[in-house]
């Protein structure tokens, strides 16, 4: 049997979106943007706990860096104030720069870790910084949930497994 190679786009078309898991915000530190590192039970069988926690901790670190109140942010703020905030028309703020870094990081994580496991992270910026949305895909080529699916997967999977190496 030919190797089944699925691109992420084909995955979305041929795979059915089984469910979405939402990692909520952690407000215990105030209004700063931090996400809960609690491991969602739905991901139990999909991804290692450590990988997930590392992703969330790195994201939390990025957001903390973006919102950090310190020398450089004061400088930026004072400069902006002095120019009646017209400088924002030409300059990118520190926060925006960090957001670009975050988006690259999420993309990289998706490509390396999450997509091979049939998961997809959505940038929290697209969800109003409220949640990290993790979409869980069920691939239609192998089993879904029922027993009939598992029997087909044992035959298809065997072939795929052999051809896949």
């Amino acid at each position, binding site marked *: 049997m030919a190797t089944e190679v699925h691109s992420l786009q084909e995955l979305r078309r041929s795979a059915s979106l089984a469910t979405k898991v939402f990692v909520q915000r952690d407000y215990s530190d105030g209004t700063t943007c931090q996400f809960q590192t609690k491991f969602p039970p739905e991901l139990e069988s999909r991804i290692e706990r450590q990988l997930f926690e590392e992703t969330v901790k790195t994201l939390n670190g990025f957001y903390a860096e973006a919102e950090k109140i310190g020398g450089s942010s004061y400088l930026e703020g004072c400069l902006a104030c002095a120019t*009646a905030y017209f400088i924002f028309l030409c300059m990118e703020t520190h*926060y925006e720069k960090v957001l670009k870094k975050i988006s690259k990081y999420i*993309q990289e994580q998706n490509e390396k870790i999450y997509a091979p496991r049939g998961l997809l992270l959505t940038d929290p910026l697209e969800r109003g910084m409220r949640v990290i949305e993790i*979409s869980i895909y069920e691939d239609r080529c192998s089993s879904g949930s029922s027993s009939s699916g598992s029997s087909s997967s044992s035959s298809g999977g065997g072939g795929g497994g052999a051809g896949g190496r």
Partner: protein
Amino acid sequence: MTPGGGSGPMKDCEYSQISTHSSSSPMESPHKKKKSAPKRKWEVFPGRNKFFCNGRIMMARQTGVFYLTLVLILVTSGLFFAFDCPYLSEKITPAIPAIGGILFFFVMGTLLRTSFSDPGVLPRATPDEAADLERQIDIANGSSSGGYRPPPRTKEVIINGQTVKLKYCFTCKIFRPPRASHCSLCDNCVERFDHHCPWVGNCVGKRNYRFFYMFILSLSFLTVFIFAFVITHVILRSQQTGFLNALKDSPASVLEAVVCFFSVWSIVGLSGFHTYLISSNQTTNEDIKGSWSNKRGKENYNPYSYGNIFTNCCAALCGPLSPSLIDRRGFIQPDTAQLAGPSNGITMYGATQSQSNMAAATPLLQSEPSITSEELPLPGKTSISGPCATLTLGQPTPPSSMPNLTSDTGLTDMIPLKEEHEGHQFLTPEEAPSPPGMLPSGSPITHSHTMHVLSLASQDSLHEDSVRGLVKLSSV
């Protein structure tokens, strides 16, 4: 047993690394040729806002008072520069119009920034998010038995040792972050909501608070400056030609003096008040409610304050500026995948998913039109929004600071409407926005109950306290 069975069926298929750009970037949408031009998100924004310049400018719906503010500032400053400055620059120093010019430039810059920028609007929840939240709330409450609405939804968080209650917003279908509040005039949840200011024609929230503060501060300086120099001008002239002749020679000065005199008290007072708020890191909303005042209890303190005035001021004025979360100029992306899982009994949300094929990573706003357009046909809705809107319109104080007012006075208007609404719901479950296909089979009765309950809950423009009041009535 499959060879790679340990980690599930996923490992049997290889996945090539395709750019995941398509999931999060709006760049792809121009390639997907639709029959009509791709719409930008501001065109389908669910809140009551006005947008200009293809989404670059965002204001509240009522902008009349903003134009008045503009006219007052422009006319007064214009008259000052035209009539008083020539005399003063000659007699005293040309630095006067120069400084006046700088102040005027600063005032206009900050005013326009405050009025045109996004105050920190929180986008509404996607249907999937809302369904997930509903499910968690139901689990927390026991089970939704239907029949009567579960108690008001709040979550408690401990921030810096202080217990803060997070309220659930029925319009936006999210738990509001701390310090956020729902503006009933703009129909949006705004982060760090201060107040809705009709003078600037926008809400004042996290993203534009510093612009607002710089505006009122610089306007106080400008007003005092103009007032002082107009008086100087008149005095100097009257030394030469007598008081009445001086007034006849420059009638504009009289107008300016009158405008400035009346403005000075309110503007300088407001600047002082906001200086106090900034130094104690409170919002107008919190101050009016007395959330952190000592009167509530000795244990009550402001968990957001940094402890000293200097840090509080710096954080509010020079802290990092967070980006706009609503992405007004982004393109609406077409959907790619549909959530095919069983709806978890929350038929309302399940319905909207089927209506508009929701996707994993599509921006939430595409769902909004279907939600709002579906809810509009409900008869009682638009008339119910009437009394609330008239109650809160034209008030510069934050709407959420008077929950009791709206719920008390609004209730009497709403009772007859509610009954007709209720009757409608029970008679015609088909008309409600949920096609039969999406419903979990075998529970039509609970369906109509939950729908009734959820429809009551989702009347967008009602303040949530009023909704709670309605429910108390219905359960009696």
